[in-house]
């Protein structure tokens, strides 16, 4: 797994693979918010540099690489566009396991496979609304009006993910 090789061995080849996979997708996301080509690549570079520097915080028992990179990307893009640091939650004070529990990592992978399938089953209209919400194109009015997101069929998947994460976090607190 590339991300663990980056985290544990500072493996540059593995990092190059991560870059090849994520940088073109990240650029697509950043371009959505109206950044020009040059600025978009600058932001993608910042995101990937953050991935390299904060690799120690990656925990495969809790998240897929894509989820972790998604949040870094959103944070970096806001930092650059608003020229201020986004408030982020307190880190949980623990070290990720050097040897992740394989069954938990598999559970995370299976869950995200099912989540992607559920996303794939959305109608194009639903899909568009969801992408807008998660890629930062919601208006302030959308946020204020309590109309709820049309999460539809992915709602149950989010709920299952939440169940598992709740369990994981409780485990961390009890250790």
């Amino acid at each position, binding site marked *: 797994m590339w991300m663990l090789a980056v985290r544990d061995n500072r493996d540059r080849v593995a990092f*190059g693979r991560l870059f090849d996979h994520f940088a073109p997708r*990240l650029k697509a996301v950043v371009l959505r918010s109206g950044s020009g080509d040059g600025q978009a690549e600058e932001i993608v570079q910042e995101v990937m540099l953050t991935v390299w520097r904060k690799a120690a915080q990656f925990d495969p028992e809790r998240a897929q690489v894509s989820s972790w990179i998604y949040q870094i990307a959103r944070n970096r893009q*806001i930092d650059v566009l608003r020229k201020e640091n986004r408030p982020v939650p*307190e880190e949980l004070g623990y070290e990720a396991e050097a040897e992740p529990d394989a069954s938990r990592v598999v559970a995370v992978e299976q869950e995200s496979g099912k989540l992607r399938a559920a996303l794939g089953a959305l109608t194009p209209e639903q899909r568009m609304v969801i992408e807008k919400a998660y890629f*930062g194109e919601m208006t302030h009015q*959308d*946020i204020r009006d309590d109309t709820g997101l049309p999460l539809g069929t992915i709602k149950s998947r989010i709920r299952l993910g939440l169940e598992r994460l709740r369990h994981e976090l409780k485990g961390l607190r009890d250790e």
Partner: protein
Amino acid sequence: MTQIVHHVPERLLVAYAAGTLPQAFSLVVAAHVSMCDECRAALEAHQAVGGALLEDEPLINLSGDMKADLMARLDDAVPDEPVYRRDGPFPAPVVAAMKGRGPRWTKLGGGVKQSILSADATGSVRLLSIPGGQAVPDHTHGGLELTLVLQGAFADETGRFGAGDLEVANDDLEHKPIAEPGPDCICLAATDAPLRFRALVPRLLQPLFRI
């Protein structure tokens, strides 16, 4: 810690993850998530949705030298970023917003104090300290207001809010929160519109106090 019963509504968590929340509200959400495992798990579940969407994005061509540029930067010195930790009732993101210096209280009368952390066109966020047993000045809202209890508790027409609880108030809520007897009730309050206190300070003075 006592049980948290009032959490971050889903749409606000998604907006926070996506980065669409104004800075003032983001601070309140980050502070609540710091205190609440339930919402931390929910936030991570939404990040998983974001990650799945990211995987499905089209591939956009990169400039030829971009990867080489980045690889060459991996050994650059990492800029020193201060790391803030929880300090008493203040979770790390609140300490970060105060740059580690602690609240600078100004008196509002009746033992009520405030410390403005930031205020601009998109909204404001401040700390409020209300002595136990005391009413928070009567006010109505011109927008969305998030109030997170950091210490003590208050109650109003909509319920009781203890440490970690988040109250979400919309335009139409006119409420009279009263701090519970006991230690000062300290809240982190963010709004996207100026608050209009009706009893305590004449409206003309409001620009002066920025409340």
